[in-house]
């Protein structure tokens, strides 16, 4: 297990380095921060001063060398916009994104496994057809549109929920609900398909023959064997959520890492962009390790 984690860490570190180098140079193509942060009538001298202050006047290769040196000392630079360490800003945003992703994913997993199993057991039933509809909506409706319709209905017309912001549990309902739809639609289909093939396995016939009831048959005998492909998809979807839900966070004014990412890209706050990508990559790496552990717990054959 430790050897596996080490191998993965090296592979991830390699691709992360390539990614960081690309982001470093490409993000500097988007323009000069001095033009964005100083007033429009700023003199050339003021701009020079601004660039000198933030080290943006040096040759780009030198900037890159300095950045690497600082990163190796765990110094990720300052945010241009907020004049605070970039890593602090990113971690604060992550403290919002992480619970959002975890709550959504927990609800998705519980609902998808439960409903998907029941649908596989009653193919063509009401739940089965309902699930197809939700999956289709999830794959066809843009989340910003669902969010807007939800705001019009639940916040403006019915006035049940706040339109945006954070603070009370009520603020979380719409973001979680909208983030829920797509991963649920995907995962429930995988659960259903995987359960369908598992239910036709000979051991299920044996269990039925010896009189196992439907409940234990689904949730004890079959589910564990049907879970492996499901976990792969759960991993993909969780990774997408850990990347930050840009659209949903923007619409609901949720101070997570997705909103931070798009804001800092648009504001050319390079250090924050780099720190956000790094922290996200680490989060996804940890999650992939957890997925691997889940594999080996569910299927002892993988452990060898």
């Amino acid at each position, binding site marked *: 297990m430790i050897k596996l984690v080490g191998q993965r860490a090296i592979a991830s570190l390699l691709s992360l380095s390539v990614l960081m180098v*690309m982001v470093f140079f490409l993000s500097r193509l*988007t323009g000069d921060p001095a033009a964005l942060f100083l007033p429009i009538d700023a003199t050339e001298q003021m701009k020079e001063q601004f660039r000198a202050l933030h080290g943006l006047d040096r040759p780009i290769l030198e900037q890159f060398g300095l950045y690497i040196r600082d990163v190796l000392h765990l110094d990720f630079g300052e945010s241009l916009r907020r004049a605070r360490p970039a890593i602090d800003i990113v971690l604060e945003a992550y403290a919002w994104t992480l619970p959002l992703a975890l709550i959504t994913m927990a609800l998705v997993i519980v609902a998808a496994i439960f409903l998907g199993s029941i649908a596989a057991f009653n193919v063509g039933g009401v739940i089965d057809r309902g699930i197809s509809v939700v999956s289709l909506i999830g794959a*066809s*409706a843009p989340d910003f549109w669902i969010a*807007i319709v939800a705001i*019009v209905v639940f916040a403006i017309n019915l006035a049940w929920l706040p339109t945006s912001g954070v603070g009370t549990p009520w603020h979380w309902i719409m973001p979680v609900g909208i983030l829920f739809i797509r991963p649920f639609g995907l995962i429930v289909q995988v659960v259903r398909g995987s359960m369908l093939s598992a239910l036709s396995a000979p051991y299920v016939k044996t269990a039925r023959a010896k009189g196992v009831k439907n409940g234990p048959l689904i949730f004890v005998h079959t589910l564990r064997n049907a879970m492996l492909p499901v976990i792969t998809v759960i991993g993909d979807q969780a990774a997408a959520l850990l990347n930050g839900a840009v659209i949903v966070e923007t619409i609901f004014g949720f101070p997570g890492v997705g909103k931070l990412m798009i804001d800092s890209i648009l504001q050319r706050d390079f250090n924050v962009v780099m720190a956000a990508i790094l922290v996200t990559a680490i989060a996804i790496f940890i999650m992939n390790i957890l997925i691997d552990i889940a594999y080996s717990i569910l299927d002892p054959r993988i452990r060898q």
Partner: protein
Amino acid sequence: MSDSTAVKPVSQDQNKGASALLGMLWRDKFAFVSAIVLLIIMAFAIFGPALLGDLATSQNLRGRNSPPFDLSRGWIFVLGGDSLGRPILARLIVAAQSTMAVAAGAVATALVIGAFFGLIAGYMGKTASQIIMRLADVIMSFPSLLLAVVVLYVLGPSIPNMILVLAITRIPIYLRTTRAEVLEVRERMFVQAAVVMGASHRRIVLRHILPVIAPTLITIATLDFAFVMLAESSLSFLGIGIQPPSITWGLMVSQGRPYLNTAWWLAFWPGLMIVITALSLNLLSNWMRVALDPAQRWRLESRKSTDA
């Protein structure tokens, strides 16, 4: 001699194949309706700007945010007017063109490039395959928002550049699928036979492998068309996609967002168009997955005999 006898049955078979395919489409009512809807939207995209281009840009401040289902201003205002008094129906039809152009362009570009490198990665040795796959990994992990902003600032906002951004992010999908399929197909007997008979690499790849994996790629492309359309509308919604005066449905939703309180229809209709199009594509792709797969086709064909 052998060539001429071989060609004739093939063309007959194709004719029969096309009509059989249409018959199968007719039998699946959801897929049939989806196909009709997509044809209508394609007609919008092709003829819309020429027919309604002037109407869609003619501002009329007295008709600002005029409500839908009110025919007093003419049928073109049946879906209401936008914040500058332009008829939403006309704008929806005109916006179909750039929306479809971006999605079709991105899918076609990604399909061709992805399939090309996927064929190379699957057919050639381990080294080429490794290099190509690692590159695909990096592309996949690159934040597409940053890519969009870079292209927007460096190359300027335009439909071809938008196609470029979306195509780059989708290439890995086709690349991986093609490679996986090629790895499997090239071990099959008929490919081995072609190798033994001395066919060139080019001929093996183009005549023997590509036709087998083409249906899979087409099915994925249909599904991906919906995905790319959603991605484009998301970028336009965030303000880093298509820029005015070009319009796409995603941009129209974003332009309607400030008026949510007073005029919900500004953002509602274009979003609904996206949903209808994506839904049709998803349904059609579901049907294609079965219809184009020889092993599963009987599900659609045999229904007639069981009904009778």
